């Protein structure tokens, strides 16, 4: 292990802050959160272990690789980015787990081996170098989104279709999506839950297959 340039007192303080918030509930929530994030990797033909992602995020926090300000964010929000309840955290905390998952999912189709987020593991890089695998993964992503749309169309749910379209345009903030659809945030919340039920149905279908 190399020399850690951070003052020992700062490291001791950080370790104490992490220890103070680590408990079974946090680990359970973080693992469930990461598990869902891992699902996007599976849809892209890749694989990651949720528990490992959480452990990596905690270790990155302790090592200082991912700076954490305990005064501003809870450890859960920092590690996972499950921040819907707080606008401030939503706007500012981008967490390790989603960044890694996103980086890996995008990495699935890259041909140059580059990794914007610095988190695509070496074995996955090898996988993406395989043109046939890239093609397969891109098709899987496309098929999943098409199936989600098809389910919403089957129910003639215009609001869910609108949410999907908004996401495709990079609009993901609650208030912004609602405004984009021309509905209130409460209606958006209901539509969002319907969309999640459809996504869950899609996952169940994939499990059955």
């Amino acid at each position, binding site marked *: 292990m190399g020399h*850690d340039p951070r003052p020992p007192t700062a490291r001791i303080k950080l370790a104490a802050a992490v*220890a103070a918030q680590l408990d*079974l509930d946090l680990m359970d929530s973080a693992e469930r959160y990461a598990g869902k*994030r891992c699902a996007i990797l599976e*849809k892209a033909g890749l694989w990651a272990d949720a528990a490992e992602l959480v452990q990596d995020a905690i270790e990155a926090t302790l090592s200082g690789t991912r700076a954490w300000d305990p005064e501003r964010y809870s450890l859960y929000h920092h590690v996972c980015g499950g921040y819907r309840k707080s606008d401030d955290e939503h706007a500012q905390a981008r967490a390790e787990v989603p960044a890694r998952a996103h980086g890996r999912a995008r990495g699935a189709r890259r041909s140059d081996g580059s990794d914007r987020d610095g988190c695509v593991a070496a074995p996955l890089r090898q996988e993406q170098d395989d043109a046939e695998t890239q093609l397969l993964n891109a098709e899987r992503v496309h098929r999943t989104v098409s199936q989600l749309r098809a389910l919403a169309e089957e129910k003639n749910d215009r609001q869910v279709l609108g949410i999907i379209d908004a996401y495709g345009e990079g609009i993901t903030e609650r208030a912004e999506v609602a405004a984009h659809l021309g509905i209130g945030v409460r209606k958006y919340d209901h539509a969002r839950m319907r969309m999640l039920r459809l996504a869950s149905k899609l996952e169940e279908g994939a499990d059955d297959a």
Partner: protein
Amino acid sequence: MMPDDKKLDKDLAILDAVYEEAAIEAGENARNQPRTAERQAKVDTMLARAQAAVRATREQALADAQDASDQQAKPIPARILGVARDAVVARLRELTHSAEAAGLEPAFQFRELDKLSTEDLQRLLADLEEQLD
């Protein structure tokens, strides 16, 4: 047929956002769900690993703090302070051989001596002499 790059970017953005929402929901609802024995065991293991990482971080920091404190607190004895670098190195090698012969493990290796300052070598010699005393 392979979807084009723009289309794929869009699909990935959609999938990413849908799973982000699903993940937030799953994380927030975890506290309301009873844990099965299998789940409890998994979470227990995760917590133990995370706590071990915290302990390791803390112990390393404490050790570093102690080292820094020792370096500052302990003055180099006057009898060693004036000794030239080459002579300090020679004495260190000699004492290390004696320590090894006595079945002790030296806390450093010869190849690392070049990287140390003369002052650090003098401290090392003082420590070693103290240990072997």
